[in-house]
């Protein structure tokens, strides 16, 4: 198998979608599930293979473009393809319930969203990366406007405007890079980046920071993010939270460590992450819309990840990657479960969490909440304790105190939701969970518990990823085409 299929197969699927549609909705949904399954199985096949793997286009790098899979991208690839598989099963249920939607186009955008995100993490060429960035962007704009109502279109327009700003800054940065370094290959850029004029390099880093930071929902640039979550359907929210935001975060830190930026930048990113965490968690307290609330929660968790990933210590980074994986699974679980409730009640007010009656949903939602809060024996705990441990080893007590104090604020709203679910005094409506959703949500909940009680399953990959992220020598060799 070649890495190129991660992009080419979804593209082929999308181009042929009009004909799948003619064969009936079952074929359409089935083929989308099949596609996600094939990509997931391909990723599983890469587990245990000697990394990095490379797949070249046309000509050997550094002249040509190549897809490189190292430990860092393998972890994200697993998360992305798994999320895609889960969501494509979930959408089967969604379209059964909501007939009359433009199903075929949804699948086009959904699959290309995943393909674009995967392309961003695989590509070793910054201009190629920008194209995947745009593919992901266009898919997310359209998916957030998919409802075609006032709210959906508003969120689509907002996302598009922010995306355009981000892409202009990134294009400018790429042009400056080409002007200065004469290439857009990441390996060569990394090699030569410290040789160029420091003022220009500051400008380049700043523009990339604004571009990817705005998309990765960093603090002074994330005022749009909750709006997007509120306007779009909840399975798309799950994807935004567990795939798209993570892809931008991947690129952010991939470039960050490839360019080997100094400790000043690290401190800056850490402070920005901390502010993001603080502001988002406090804001979440005041929300009455569930989607918005979990949007803020996502922003907060991204804040922790930015704090932890910018430390350059393998302990903290490994913990952060564990936390990232666990957060992706938990948020997917929460958003998919919320989707069932929102569909039932036709409302996204926070009260719906108090008004449903379903033991199963209560349990899975509670597992998701506890995991995000970092409470054992769920997977979030291992991530959080690893992060804290990493900070402890570098004796960064401020960060520890900060994370723990803000986590209490986080606990306030998570446990308020839990208490609402458990409250017996509210009027309750029985909610039935279909068999497909039952299996999906059980699977996600089991994974959360499994990674919590047996973290070695995951720490192996996070350690690999950490090593690849902090010491990208192998990656650079492949990107430079050494020994191919």
């Amino acid at each position, binding site marked *: 198998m070649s890495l190129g299929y991660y992009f080419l197969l979804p593209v082929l699927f999308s181009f042929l979608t009009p004909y799948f549609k003619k064969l009936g909705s079952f074929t359409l949904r089935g083929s989308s599930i099949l596609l996600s399954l094939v990509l997931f199985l391909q990723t599983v096949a890469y587990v245990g293979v000697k990394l990095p793997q490379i797949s070249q286009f046309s000509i050997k790098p550094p002249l040509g473009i190549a897809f490189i899979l190292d430990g860092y991208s393998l972890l994200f690839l697993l998360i992305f393809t798994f999320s895609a598989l889960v969501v494509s099963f979930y959408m089967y249920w969604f379209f059964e319930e909501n007939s009359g939607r433009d199903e075929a186009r949804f699948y086009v955008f959904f699959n290309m969203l995943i393909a674009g995100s995967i392309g961003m993490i695989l590509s070793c060429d910054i201009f190629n990366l920008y194209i995947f960035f745009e593919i992901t962007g266009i898919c997310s704009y359209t998916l957030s406007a998919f409802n075609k109502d006032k709210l959906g279109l508003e969120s689509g327009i907002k996302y598009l405007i922010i995306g355009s700003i981000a892409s202009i800054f990134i294009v400018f940065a790429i042009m400056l890079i080409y002007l200065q370094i004469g290439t857009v290959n990441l390996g060569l850029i990394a090699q030569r980046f410290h040789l160029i004029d420091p003022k220009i390099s500051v400008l380049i*880093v700043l523009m990339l920071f*604004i571009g990817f930071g705005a998309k990765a929902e960093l603090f002074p640039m994330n005022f749009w993010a909750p*709006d997007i979550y509120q306007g779009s359907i909840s399975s798309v929210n799950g994807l935004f939270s567990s795939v798209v935001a993570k892809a931008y975060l991947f690129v952010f830190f991939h470039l960050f460590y490839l360019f080997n930026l100094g400790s000043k930048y690290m401190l800056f990113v850490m402070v920005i992450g901390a502010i993001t965490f603080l502001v988002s968690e406090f804001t979440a307290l005041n929300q009455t819309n569930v989607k918005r609330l979990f949007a803020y929660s996502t922003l907060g968790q991204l804040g922790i990840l930015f704090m932890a990933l910018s430390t350059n210590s393998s302990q903290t980074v490994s913990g952060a990657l564990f936390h990232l994986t666990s957060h992706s699974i938990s948020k997917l679980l929460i958003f998919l479960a919320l989707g069932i409730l929102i569909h039932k009640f036709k409302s996204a007010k926070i009260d719906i969490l108090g008004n449903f009656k379903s033991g199963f949903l209560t349990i899975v939602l509670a597992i998701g909440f506890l995991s995000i809060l970092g*409470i054992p024996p769920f997977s979030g705990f291992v991530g959080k*304790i690893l992060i804290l441990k990493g900070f402890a080893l570098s004796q960064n007590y401020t960060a520890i105190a900060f994370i723990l104090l803000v986590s209490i604020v986080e606990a306030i709203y998570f*446990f308020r939701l839990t208490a609402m679910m458990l409250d017996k005094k509210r009027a309750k409506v029985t909610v039935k969970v279909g068999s497909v959703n039952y299996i999906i949500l059980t699977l996600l909940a089991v994974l959360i518990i499994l990674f919590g009680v047996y973290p070695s399953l995951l720490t192996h990959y996070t350690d690999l990823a950490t090593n690849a992220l902090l010491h990208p020598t192998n990656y650079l060799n492949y990107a430079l085409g050494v020994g191919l």
Partner: protein
Amino acid sequence: MNSIFLLLNLLPILFLYQFGGALHVSLPLTSEFTLSLIQTPLGTFFAYLSLISFLLVTIAQKSKKLACNYYVLQFLLSMAMLAIVLAGDFITFFIGWEIMTWSSYFLISKSNSIDIKSLQKYILFSLASAFSLIAGIVIAYSFAHSFDFSVISNSFKDMPFNIKVALIVLFSLSFFTKAGVIGLHYWVVDTYSKAPNLFSSILSAVMSKMGIYGLFLVYGNIVGYQELKMMFGTILNGTDFGYVLAWIGVATSIIATFKAITQDEVKRLLAYSSIAQLGYIIAVIGFGTTYGVAGAMYHTLIHTIIKLLLFINVAAIVAQTGKNRFSQLGGLIYRTPVSFVMLLIGIIGLAGMPPLGGFASKFMMYNAAIDTKFALILIGMLFSGAASFLYCYKLVYGIYLGHPTSKNLETTKEVPISYLIPQIILALLLVLAGTFPGAFIKIINPILVEFSLSTIPYSGLGVMNSAVGSFNGFFIMSAFVVFFVLILLLITRIKSKAKNNLNRFDISYCGEVPTQDTSLHFGFGFGTDLYRIKFVNAILKRSSSSFYESLATQTKKTSELFSRMYYGNIHNTMIIILLFFSTLFFIGVN
């Protein structure tokens, strides 16, 4: 269902007994974490304490129709506590601690009287406690590079002084919150009173003891009493640190005792009483002397027994009558005599009167205070001990004596046998603890060795030795039984002649004839006169709730302030991004 979980609860006890002190398991969680269980004398003591409590409570739950998930959660809770007390490293300890937190949260949420605010209080204080604990753990890790108790304990001496203090403060805060030290007790009363009735007994008797276990672990094992002495110096015959702690404990017990007296709800009274009793334990735990530790340990045991007994007793009464306030109860002595006797035994123990176990534990604690020459502490303890008679009296009078306050109470039947069995067992234990206090010396000596303190000389089962003096529990008990039987005979001779066929409204005072609504019960309004005493009034008026409520208000205000930024104007968002870029540009390039 009940029987299955009864057996399941029995299993760990047998398992622990089988190992007999040699349990040592380690389980690698990841390459960096290893979960390990080690059976120390201290841990074994607490393990038996919690496991037996769970067993007894499960017996009492026989008469309730509880769902399977209730039992599963309760079993999970007991396992979590077992993990806490048998933990050999901080990760296991913390995992147990957090599982304890959330499983008890879900159990409390199953109550019918619980509201969101109380649940929030409970979980936020528990999480604050857990986060302060984890902060301490990772700080210790940053020096010891291990989570193992023994490694951290060994490297503790080499840490900088401020880190040592920070560790002790963080750990103490965490465990104080669980034990409900005054100021951090905001969650205790609401939670205990609104939790399911039988579960309150576990909360008060076992879960608060996990805080005490943590204090023993940190002061005795991790830091070590010797090290505490070296760090803070000594005052009189005890440590400086112990002196401060003793004041915290005494203040807790005095304030909580007065608060308890004024309560109208039975379980709220018990909750405050629980805080007061734990105050004693905290008062002596830091002395760093043999008798301080022994007294704290003994009182832990006795308090567990008493609180289980009292809470089960009250739960039975509430289940039987549906009333949970003193002003609604009364006169149940003729309807539920066995329950009355059990409660009587319980409050005799609670008041610390001879011949029951309560006396022995108080004796040890007072001795410890005398031994260290902390006279003021001793006076405080005696004062609150004397004041506690009042709420003990209120408890027995309000429920069982006086006039029944409503018609239904007159037709109440004796509580179901499943409630009585654990009470009888506990009462017997209490009697035994009073009769053979010497047996406890055998349990406590290994723990004292573990803390590298001198041991207590053992001279017979009935004899409790201390630095100041000793007493023979067996002798006192024998004498008491003889007197008791004599007096009982006397009373029954007099009583048997009187006919008890009066109606409770057959009285009139000041020319007024009471109606159905008139509360004739003395339990109604008992203790309100305390407000007239200036000193007590000052205690009762002040409350930590205003502080925490203002904290909540501040949080909400901050939240509103921040959420004003997210008001959805994309135009301004763009301007902010561009300004952010410009600012960074001018800073970065120049």
